[in-house]
């Protein structure tokens, strides 16, 4: 009985638990990437106990892969030695960890996944209690198979209505982060629900859940439905549970009518600094970036490609495209989407996180401005601390790329030719 978060913990523990309780729970998977695994290995070595179950560990190379520096390569080397020696089967270097986790079926309803990355909250889109932790916490679970959790209170978002043209899931979540603030959901679970969420694709849901942490949320949960099952059908052999709230008590319920939304932009240097696109229209942009665990999936690329088909990126700007995973890269290639980007003059990079964390492939110079589909616009994130990062939907980024300045996608969206 309770919220989705309470349901997951109650089913997991075999007894009814409620928000505010401190519990020890079994962890289904322990995820980490090239940036957070080395510290987890160091912490594990310091604890000095054997791994509880190597098959619960999932390691990805994505934050700086292939490595742009000797230091980075050394970290990869050290992690790879651990993978080999401990017989870690679940080792991937085929894209952004969260996307690969979802594609490979590690994320299923009713399970608990902890990840050495704050955007592990993404897994809530598939009713999985995914939450970010630090490397030492990962090491604790390496040796115990468990971890401690405070069962969170829940902030529920009820969304109804249809998005107007030019408005997407990204605009909705930017709007919600702006409403609640960067710490408004701190220590809490977010639950996204209502007819608009029910009508969304899994990809759109992942975009919402991904940014729960930008309001401090522990996880961004969405109840299981037939789309969850359809998505997971050929991806996992694990039994699929239905996780829904049962007579829940919410700390707060926020209702939003999607039909009244508009395209939004997060302005430097905080994600909760949200403005309607028209307020920043005309801002000249040096780098346009399409990708990340927020908006690097096939439908995101499709939306952008539809806009860029037969057009060119502004000659004095650059555009970088990173499909979120190899699976998406392959599909986008087959469907002619990558060709549209190439023809438009964009640079297509390998799937990964490098651009979004300022490691390689599009680092900003002092004074430069970027308009991106990322989830964070923190000072210095993409390179120089004197650069500025704006966040928006793939549509806003693609249209703006043509003009070299922030442009309202609604003005011109109806005039585009279909995909080749």
């Amino acid at each position: 009985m309770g919220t989705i978060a309470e349901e997951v913990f109650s089913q997991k523990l075999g007894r009814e638990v409620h928000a505010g309780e401190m519990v020890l729970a079994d962890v289904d998977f322990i995820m980490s990437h090239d940036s957070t695994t080395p510290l987890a290995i160091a912490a594990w070595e310091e604890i000095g106990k054997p791994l509880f179950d190597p098959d619960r560990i999932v390691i990805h190379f994505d934050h700086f892969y292939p490595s742009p520096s000797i230091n980075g390569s050394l970290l990869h080397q050290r992690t790879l030695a651990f993978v080999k020696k401990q017989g870690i089967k679940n080792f991937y270097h085929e894209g952004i960890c969260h996307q690969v986790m979802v594609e490979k079926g590690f994320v299923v309803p009713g399970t608990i996944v902890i990840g050495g990355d704050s955007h592990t909250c993404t897994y809530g889109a598939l009713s999985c209690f995914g939450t970010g932790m630090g490397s030492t916490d990962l090491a604790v679970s390496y040796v115990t198979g468990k971890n401690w959790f405070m069962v969170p209170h829940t902030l529920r978002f009820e969304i109804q209505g249809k998005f107007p043209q030019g408005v997407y899931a990204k605009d909705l979540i930017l709007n919600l982060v702006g409403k609640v603030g960067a710490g408004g959901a701190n220590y809490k679970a977010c639950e996204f629900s209502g007819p608009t969420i029910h009508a969304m694709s899994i990809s759109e849901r992942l975009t919402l859940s991904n940014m729960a942490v930008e309001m401090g949320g522990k996880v961004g949960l969405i109840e299981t439905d037939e789309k969850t099952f359809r998505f997971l059908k050929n991806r996992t052999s694990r039994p699929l549970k239905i996780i829904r709230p049962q007579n829940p008590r919410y700390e707060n319920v926020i209702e939003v009518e999607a039909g009244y939304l508009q395209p939004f932009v997060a302005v430097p240097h905080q994600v909760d600094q949200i403005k309607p696109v028209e307020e920043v229209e005309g801002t000249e942009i040096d780098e346009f970036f399409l990708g990340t665990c927020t908006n690097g999936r096939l439908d995101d690329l499709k939306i952008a490609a539809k806009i860029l088909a037969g057009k060119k990126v502004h000659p004095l700007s650059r555009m970088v495209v990173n499909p979120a995973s190899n699976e998406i890269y392959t599909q986008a290639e087959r469907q002619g989407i990558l060709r549209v980007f190439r023809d438009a003059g964009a640079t297509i990079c390998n799937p990964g996180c490098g651009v979004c964390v300022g490691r390689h492939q599009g680092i900003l110079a002092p004074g430069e401005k970027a308009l991106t589909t990322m989830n964070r616009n923190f000072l210095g994130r993409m390179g120089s601390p004197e650069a500025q990062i704006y966040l928006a939907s793939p549509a806003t980024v693609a249209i703006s790329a043509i003009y070299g300045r922030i442009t309202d996608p609604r003005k011109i969206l109806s005039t585009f030719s279909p995909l080749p």
Partner: protein
Amino acid sequence: MGRVWKFGNNINTDEIIPGRFNITTDPKVLAQHCFCEVRPDFPSSVKPGDLIIAGENFGSGSSREHAPLAIKASGIKVIIAYSFARIFYRNAINVGLPVFISEEILTRVGDGDHLEIDFENFYVKDPETEGIFPFQPLPLFILKIFKAGGIIPFLKESNLEDLC
């Protein structure tokens, strides 16, 4: 006694340790870049025993444990904030960096003030004015980790089950 380094609201992990300096696990190297963009004087001027006093949601953003490690290796003895971001709070407790919550201290002390801290009785004291600023005691299970000096020393002596 330590100097107060005062910060505002929503100090994020990119400000504590920018992502591009994250390609190491060496806390000493991380400390060289700690707050280098928002407080360029911090890495060179911070002394062992200094304190950080901050506003809401300290440590928001990424899960990088490099952030509390960098602060700890800088010599900071305690962070007292109005509130902490969830992952940062866990990470700090786990690596043995004391973090406490106080809703009033931010408005009562200034950057550069010097304070004494009493972990046993949960307060800091301004020896000049004799002003005493209490902070919230830790929940019992967190206190157990804190007293052990972090989750790793705790696990060496005890089982995870002993937390409950």
